[in-house]
């Protein structure tokens, strides 16, 4: 058991040290995605941009919000959310995607998770560019508070990692995990205040937001992007969930690492 834990921890560590390989793999995966298309990586920005603009136009009318206030608010929430949601959805296929390599040799299998996170991080950077253009247009005050984006991104990254690892393991073992995850993500997108501001909630219902870890993981980045001071509470929860989550993920990984290749 102890041996398994050590091997699992070493696996997770190797991934970080393999950053050169990871970078190469992520880059080639992204360029490959856009081969033979004429819009190329512009697609990343377009899909997010179109969705946000259309939703903003409709929603701002529905909720009586100012379009110039709502659009950046929506984008600031959507960007970390899509990072998380895409990573978790892709995590369901993390190990099957690496099947030919996993059946060929032993290596730090967590690399499959790191590849997903790396790829989505590159896309996140892309989306941030779009955001900053919009922010300029909507006259958002980007001051020192925006530096907190680094902290926000780290909190998001670490928490996404452990959730992705756990999901990847169980999605390999049980084929109904993937559709379940899809449904949960869809629900989460509406339950978490991304498209709606927290202010519409009745005070007695604040618990819906307070006890939603996703809200906190997204909130640090969102506040930073909107030029607001972030909630220390969110950072605290982000750190605590990171620690508990990583420990949990290491434990689950150590139990199942030996069996992964049997589940293909």
């Amino acid at each position, binding site marked *: 058991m102890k041996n398994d834990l050590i091997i699992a921890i070493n696996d997770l560590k190797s991934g970080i040290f393999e950053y*050169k*390989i990871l970078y*190469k*793999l992520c880059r*080639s995966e992204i360029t*490959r995605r856009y*081969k*033979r298309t004429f819009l190329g990586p512009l697609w990343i920005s377009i899909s997010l941009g179109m969705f946000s603009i259309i939703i903003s136009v409709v929603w701002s009318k529905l909720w009586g919000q100012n379009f110039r206030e709502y659009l950046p608010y929506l984008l600031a929430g959507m960007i970390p959310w899509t990072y998380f949601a895409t990573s978790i959805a892709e995590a369901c296929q993390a190990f099957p995607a690496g099947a*030919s*390599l*996993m*059946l*060929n*040799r*032993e*290596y730090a299998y967590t690399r499959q998770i790191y590849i997903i996170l790396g790829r989505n991080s590159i896309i996140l950077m892309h989306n941030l560019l779009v955001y900053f253009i919009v922010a300029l247009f909507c006259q958002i005050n980007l001051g020192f508070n925006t530096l907190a984006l680094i902290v926000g991104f780290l909190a998001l990254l670490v928490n996404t990692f452990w959730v992705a690892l756990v999901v990847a393991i169980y999605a390999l073992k049980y084929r109904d995990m993937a559709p379940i995850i899809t449904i949960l993500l869809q629900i989460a997108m509406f339950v978490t205040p991304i498209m709606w501001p927290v202010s519409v909630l009745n005070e007695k219902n604040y618990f819906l937001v307070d006890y939603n870890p996703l809200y906190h993981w997204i909130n640090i980045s969102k506040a930073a992007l909107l030029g607001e001071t972030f909630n220390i509470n969110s950072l605290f929860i982000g750190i605590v969930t990171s620690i508990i989550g990583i420990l949990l993920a290491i434990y689950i990984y150590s139990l199942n690492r*030996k*069996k992964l*290749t*049997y589940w293909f």
Partner: protein
Amino acid sequence: MSYLKLEKICIDFEVQNYRQISTSFINGIIGGKFIGKKNKNIVIRALDNINLEIKTGDRIGLVGANGAGKSTLLRTLARVFKPSEGKFTWEGKITPLLNQTPGMEMEDTGLENIEIVCMLLGMSEEEIGEKINGIVEFSGLGDFINMPIRTYSTGMLARLGFSIATSINPGILIVDEGIGAADAQFSEKAAKKVNELLNASEILILASHSQHMIEQWCEKAIWLDHGKIQMIGSVTEVFTSYNNFISIKG
């Protein structure tokens, strides 16, 4: 100093949700052994009580009928399947050469694939830089190396895969036959390359149905049947018994 030590190794496969299979089907002529049910899943024992000690300089051939467990044993040695029972200790660099070249992407060019696959096979950036021209030249693909590999014929893909696979620095070389597939013009070059590779390895474990291949490369052989080692000995000894057994069984 490399070695591989297997003690009482068993590899079990759980097959989910197939409860209606009859035992006679499972205890057939080939394949693993049905050892009962666990959590409503059927368990097949692919390798049964394997004890082996392989040291530097050993060149071992693996023979047996289809489904005997040769590929499973190779994969176990390559650390792909971790044993359900038993202890596996080893020292040295394990370099598996099992059938597929992992990570080949159809939309990428031959050159891009070489870089990525070499990286996945564990080569450092410097090593790839040194070897890449050699790999391109050996493959004989010329300008096609800059075309996406979805434009390649099967033969060209095989050549590319072979060139990459044989460019590794062999340590403990674990080979599943089938990596030699290529067209006639390539074969002479290929045979020479395989020669170099196998000679440079510290330990060689080769699974093959070809007696000629094993006699050429190995001095010891293991005969595997239904996941159990039937015999370990010199190549001549093992083949005499194995061929006898086949002719008796008819």
